[in-house]
């Protein structure tokens, strides 16, 4: 008998990156099949192909449903094939009621007029079916994230979905909401709905799934029945990659402590009371790379953002620079105290894409480089030229528009911006996300060179080999708390990943 869904030899390339390289995956009726792997392993890409986000023929390989090939030209086609994807970022219209959301685009109509009665009774029936105590008339805005997630599931069922994909569904849920979700997922499985479950949380994978497929670097590593595996084996499969010679030899001698953060606590601005970071502290030394490992949602970025004075919600922290307490209320304060921050997502937080490389590079340190009020174009050009040369930025000139550069060069521009502020502590958040191997290697060499020159570097990355290959010391975050501390020699991929998944704890 054919499996319900079979994805055969799927390949997909983005400019400069091969995201999927012959991935095969299958799914049976009434099965929960977990899909695990590090960030960047290709899980999201695979799902987007199934969802029709990347339409045929932008990918290679074939999608078969009940043995016959389907080629989705768009998301609609995928929905028609009764596939529903519930993304991490929920896609509900917050200003509409629950019922309106469930039937969005498929409202029961008569002569083009929406039949409200059928709309609400239909929604009520679906919610009852799932034993959800949610009034279909409630504005979606008033629901918690967890309940919204359940509404999404109801919506998927209203489309009569036979395949439901859940991408990190528990990332924003409280423990009791997770329990409700699991009850419902088990119920769906009993009704022969097939589910793909993507999660970083291995305990959930083991509680829920029938089979586990591990992806790594765009390839399928293994597919096994869950009962044949244990967590350690899955972790080994996830990280089982040679930490090759792309990392430079570390030659720096670490110096005295220049930066310390104590008791950093950060509240989720969207969910009052929920802590994204819970009493985390760390020190950074001169000429040292401190790595912060952790999975997505572990609070890594929020930790740095809060220290830098850029977190939108409530936070508390005690920051010491050169052993003296400093007040940081906004990024300008942090810059003043010698902290630089190469933020994640360079297009959103790092660059002004419309402007030249030079203007991007000088933005944060403009007053120091150029003049307090009247700017000095020549002085800027000289400084920018030097940075572009030092960092090997490949562009026709420093007057090239930043948006036209490759990802690697854009990242170097952001790095140059912060180096031009003459920082003493440099935070790097996912400095190599989405750039090719060659550019990565150059960034690694720069990080090493900067540490050698005496800078204290705090490196956040979800790519474990990167953290292991570059850091002198590593702390591991899991759900906003420190779960492990390692020196370079002690850190093994398995040990760090165990702490990152909350499987183990380790003190330095």
């Amino acid at each position, binding site marked *: 008998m054919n499996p319900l869904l079979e994805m055969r030899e799927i390949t997909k390339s983005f400019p400069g990156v091969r995201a999927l390289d012959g991935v095969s995956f299958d799914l049976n009726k009434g099965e929960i099949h977990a899909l695990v792997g590090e960030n960047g392993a290709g899980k999201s890409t695979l799902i987007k192909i199934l969802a029709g986000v990347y339409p045929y023929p932008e990918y290679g390989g074939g999608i078969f449903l009940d043995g016959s090939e389907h080629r989705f030209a768009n998301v609609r086609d995928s929905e028609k094939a009764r596939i529903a994807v519930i993304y991490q970022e929920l896609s509900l219209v917050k200003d509409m009621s629950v019922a309106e959301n469930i039937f969005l685009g498929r409202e029961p109509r008569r002569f083009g007029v929406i039949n409200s009665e059928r709309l609400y009774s239909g929604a009520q029936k679906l919610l009852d079916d799932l034993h959800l105590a949610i009034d279909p008339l409630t504005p979606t805005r008033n629901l918690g994230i967890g309940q919204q997630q359940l509404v999404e599931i109801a919506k998927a069922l209203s489309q009569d979905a036979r395949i439901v994909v859940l991408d990190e569904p528990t990332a924003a849920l409280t423990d009791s909401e997770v329990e409700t979700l699991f009850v419902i997922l088990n119920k769906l499985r009993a009704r022969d709905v097939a589910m793909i479950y993507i999660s970083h949380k291995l305990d959930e994978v083991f509680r829920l799934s029938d089979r586990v497929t591990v992806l790594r670097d765009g390839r399928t590593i293994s597919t096994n029945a869950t009962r044949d595996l244990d967590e350690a084996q899955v972790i080994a499969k996830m990280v089982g990659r040679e930490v090759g010679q792309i990392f430079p030899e570390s030659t720096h001698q670490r110096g005295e402590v220049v930066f310390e953060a104590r008791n950093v606590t950060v509240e989720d601005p969207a969910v009052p009371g929920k802590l994204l970071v819970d009493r985390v502290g760390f020190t950074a030394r001169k000429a040292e790379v401190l790595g912060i490992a952790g999975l997505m949602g572990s609070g890594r970025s929020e930790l740095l953002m809060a220290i830098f004075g*850029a977190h939108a919600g409530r936070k508390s922290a005690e920051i010491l620079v050169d052993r003296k307490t400093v007040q940081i209320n906004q990024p300008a304060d942090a810059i*003043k105290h010698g902290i630089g921050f190469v933020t994640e997502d360079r297009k959103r937080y790092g660059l002004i894409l419309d*402007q030249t490389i030079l*203007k991007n590079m000088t*933005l944060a340190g403009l007053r120091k480089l150029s003049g307090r009020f009247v700017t000095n174009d020549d002085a800027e*050009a000289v400084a920018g030229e030097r940075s572009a040369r030092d960092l090997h930025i490949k562009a026709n000139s420093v*007057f090239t528009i930043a948006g036209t550069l490759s990802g690697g060069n854009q990242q170097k521009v952001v790095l140059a911006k912060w180096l031009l502020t003459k920082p003493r502590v440099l935070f790097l958040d996912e400095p190599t996300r989405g750039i090719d191997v060659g550019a990565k290697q150059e960034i690694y060499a720069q990080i090493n060179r900067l540490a050698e020159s005496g800078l204290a570097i705090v490196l956040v990355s979800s790519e474990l080999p990167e953290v292991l290959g570059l850091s002198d010391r590593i702390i591991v975050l899991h759900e906003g708390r420190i779960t492990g501390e390692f020196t370079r020699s002690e850190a093994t991929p398995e040990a760090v990943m165990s702490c990152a998944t909350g499987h183990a704890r380790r003190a330095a």
Partner: protein
Amino acid sequence: MRDGSRPTRRLVRTLMSEPKIKGRFKLRTSALRAYTMLLALIVIWLFFQWATIDQHHPYGLFLGAVNFSKLLQQMAVTGVLAVGMLMVIVCGNIDLSVGAVVGLAGGIAAMTQGWGVAPSLGAAIVVGLLIGAIQGTLVAYVNIPAFIVTLGGLEAWRGVILKLTKGATIPVEHPFFRSLGRDFIDPRIGFGLAIVAVASIAWINLRRNRARQRHGLKVLTVGAIAARILVPSVVIVAFIFLMNKAGGVPIPVIFLLAVALAGAFLTANTTFGRYLYAIGGNPDAARLSGINLRRYILAAFCLMGALAGLASILHTARVGSASPDAGNLMELDAIASCVIGGTSLMGGRGTVFGAVLGALILASLDNGMSLLNVESWAQYVVKGGVLVAAVGFDMFGRRKT
């Protein structure tokens, strides 16, 4: 022209190890918009010049000294407002209230003439500045969208005028006040200004070249420096000469030139200007780079308000009285000038040069069509069409690149 630092750009390009054809081409496309606008302006001018040929004016009437002087007087108010509007739009906001502010500040200037001319003119500018500060605070610190705040302002300030003036039109009595909108500067002073301008251009160029030497950058050839000094100098002298034929440079035009120069300097050569573009281009990146967004947005609104106060003086003086509906719809002309001049309403893009050029294009259309006795309905249609076409052309060009 986007960043007003072309000399440096060219300089460093010559410094880069391998100058490439592709790089040169890119430079041209980035300046393309400015050239296109200039070209459009010249086409419009030539058309009206040709269309106004008659037996009394064998070479056309439009670009003659008298009419050209009148055209520039007509654009002065819009031009001043457009410079302020540019700064507000570049940092990602909008000000719909400027027409009403022109009306209110002009009314207050006319009503306070009894205090003496200086206090009454000062009052107009202070009123504008205060309104800018109020609206800017609501936008930057209370987070109300600028569109809403200034739409409210458009209504409310107009109401305040009606209350203060009781609906009456107040004549300008003071001759100095009047002269600001109607008189010309003495031709000799005009020439004096031209000499100062030419000398400044020469001095700036030579100083920059010395600075380059100091920074160890390549210096320009004597020919290049001479061209850089001569070309603008010739334009300035020719302009003064033409104006002097019609009695001298009109005073409002002097104000416009001063405002445009100051605005161009502020946007292109100061940290303030750089931050405005950064805020409009990517507010998140600007904030994380340590820029205090609120402070600069407030400052942009304050400048806009003060310039609206100045514009109200020029307008009231030219008309000779302050009426309750003065300034009506001027905000739209100012916004249209910016947009025709290549300013993006999304923020982050636009130049003072472009905004003033846009105002000049609008004024040329107005003036030329009036000369040709085009019916007023058709004038509206043409101006609206030009606005949409300018942006459409821009979008088309951008999509291709």
